[in-house]
């Protein structure tokens, strides 16, 4: 008698897989990767590959040592690595990404049980860890966009090889990031266009708003991320820029620099949307994203760090379980459990 496969219903499934989702995110980050190479040369690509490689390596090693099932095939380590790389300045020495990736994977993700179980976004926590440990390397020399014509493609390689003094040189030619001058006000249209396309200082992935938008819209269209998160996050930041601007006599002048500058778009599209560290209901997501936007604005305008996106997301990650508790989804036909109480 024939024997057939027996399993529980449903017997069909859609095509989406975990690795498929992660690959979509990698694809969505491709424009930002290309932009980073265009603006910072091949050292950017080197850093990105290094981050991805060490993230995957750290996860593989952890699984091996702990005798867990190998999980690197789900591509989530690659996403973490790449996101961390895009959060680094073009001037960091090569050991920084290795340490950062390993920290993010082992201490933020794997120790909590691996994919889906971490409470904070590994890439962001990795960045914050590096900020605290190597603050100087992580913020001071942002690195300015290179010129491809006179051997600029390898400019940062040369700087690194020449040692620290060269990095100082870079710092010398680099003006502050757009954001550090945000509180000082004053942006010309030309600067804004630069910020949009990417020819400004900043971390590898932050400079080109256009590249991030392309990737972000792709993720929304492919239904990998919920549009509510980036829209609310960015919208909240814009709103506070309007209020702050209004208070400083230039209501509209702050909006575009706030939205286009710094890590906002990278954070809003790619990091605040992380599944395990954001709420599970649509209302919860909006509250979460609003919190991200609020904290980002507060840090930017009143804090001592010029950039607040990472801290904002991290803080909201920690609040996520409470948001989930407060904004529970009620089942279809939910009846309030009260004696005699009726809900229509």
């Amino acid at each position, binding site marked *: 008698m024939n024997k057939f*496969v027996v399993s529980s219903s449903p017997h069909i*499934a859609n095509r989406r897989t975990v690795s498929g989702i992660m690959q979509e995110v990698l694809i969505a980050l491709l424009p930002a990767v290309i932009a980073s190479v265009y603006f910072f040369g091949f050292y950017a690509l080197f850093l990105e590959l290094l981050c991805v490689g060490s993230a995957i390596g750290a996860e593989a090693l952890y699984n091996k040592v702990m005798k867990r099932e190998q999980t690197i095939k789900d591509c989530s380590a690659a996403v973490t690595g790449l996101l961390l790389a895009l959060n680094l300045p073009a001037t960091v020495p090569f050991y920084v990404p290795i340490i950062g990736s390993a920290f993010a994977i082992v201490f933020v993700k794997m120790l909590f049980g691996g994919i889906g179980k971490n409470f904070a976004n590994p890439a962001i926590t990795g960045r914050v860890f590096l900020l605290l440990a190597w603050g100087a390397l992580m913020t001071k020399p942002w690195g300015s966009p290179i010129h491809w014509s006179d051997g600029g493609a390898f400019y940062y390689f040369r700087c690194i090889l020449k040692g620290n003094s060269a990095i100082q040189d870079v710092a010398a030619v680099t003006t502050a990031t757009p954001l550090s001058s945000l509180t000082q006000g004053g942006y010309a249209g030309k600067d804004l266009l630069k910020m949009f396309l990417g020819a400004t200082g900043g971390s590898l992935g932050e400079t080109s708003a256009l590249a991030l938008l392309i990737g972000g819209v792709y993720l929304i269209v492919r239904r990998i991320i919920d549009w509510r998160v980036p829209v609310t996050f960015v919208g909240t930041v814009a709103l506070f820029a309007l209020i702050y601007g209004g208070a400083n006599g230039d209501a509209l002048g702050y909006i575009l620099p706030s939205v286009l500058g710094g890590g906002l778009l990278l954070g809003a599209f790619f990091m605040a949307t992380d599944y395990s560290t954001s709420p599970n209901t649509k209302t919860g997501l909006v509250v979460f994203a609003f919190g991200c936007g609020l904290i980002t604005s507060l840090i930017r305008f009143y804090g001592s760090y010029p950039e607040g996106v990472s801290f904002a997301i991290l803080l909201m990650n920690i609040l996520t379980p409470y948001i989930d508790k407060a904004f529970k989804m009620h089942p279809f036909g939910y009846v309030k459990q009260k004696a005699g109480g009726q809900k229509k």
Partner: protein
Amino acid sequence: MEKIALKLTFKRGVHPAGNKNIAKDIPLSEFPTPSVVSIPLSQHIGAPAAPAVQVGDHVSVGTLIGRSSGFVSANVYSSVSGTVKEFITKRTAIGTKANHVVIENDGLYQESFLTPLTDLTAESVKARVAEAGIVGMGGATFPTHVKLSPRTPVDVLIINAAECEPYITCDYRLCLEKTKEIFEGIKAMMVALGVKEAYIGVEDNKPEAIRALSVFATQDIRVVPLITKYPQGAEKQLIYSITQRVVPEGALPADVGAVVDNVHTAYAIYEAVFLGKPSFMRAMTVSGKGCAKPGNFWVRNGVTYQDVASYCELLPETEKVISGGPMMGFAQSDLLPSTGKGTSSLLFLTKEEVAEGDKPISACINCASCASHCPMRLMPMFIERAVDAEDAAAAKKLHAMSCLECGCCAYVCPARRPLVTSMRRAKKMIKEKGV
């Protein structure tokens, strides 16, 4: 405020590929009944029927062979004429063991039916439905006379012709080929329930069925096109789609004044009331790429899956045999079970058609996709965690009891978590621990 819905539907749900083209255009034909049938005495939810014949008895088509053994139970009739050979116990399609009456088919199909009803009253129709052994023919197999006797007064009858499960097309064929009869059946049901309003819900991927039914539609019996989305035919979702009424958690449709029955049930009621024909035969779809001759058939109860597989030419590529639809049906390990009143379809699916194999199982990534597609607005991933932690109280608090087992959650889960299995375990645990 009067709500005007242009296209009727419910919230959430999924859009699996319909795959209805395989069998959609093949008209219903009678399935050649083999020389022996084995008719299950438990073809319904509730107590199994008690044997009403003995080995050696001669039976006709329509002879009572199993007597209803309670209010929630149903009579079983012989589907062939011939001699009762033996009683056997074997596995049914849903995996439980049941007593079967084995009858040698003499091939004459002598009929002995009930007398058609002439005077239609609520009582006479309900009595006839109970006597004829009619159960929910969409697959739920809940005794229909119980549904027609709601504990609270109702004002609307909803006929489920949504047929939202992929592959299945028997209700569709029925709508095209037995349109007038379906309306007669609905009228009898309206008499039984004392309602003045009835709606026939059909998904809009079956425009021919909508057109055919609309010819007979009246002020009182309306045809409503529904958006094609699974599980449009789930009772609570269908009630919401058509009337915007929300059945409260733990309540029955009748509590919001509605009764939902399958379109095939309406047809069976027509037969029982106007022709005196009890329930022993049904329209059934055989489909899937694992058989060479798919189609829609009138199948007499007691035909085995092996008989169906032989006639429809089962192909060696078949990996899964499913009784019912691919979203909620039961996978069969072998072809031993018999068809019954609730067997709406038998699917022979190949490897490429079923999800197994190409989608690896991994840890939950907390994407909340399951929750955002759940038509009952549950949190499947949390319920699964509660089950894994053996925490029945937590599972209950997460409303696991409201789960329809529709499978939307598992269908979308990228980690391919066995969520429906977890839901069943949760329910079992809650019942056992009595939390």
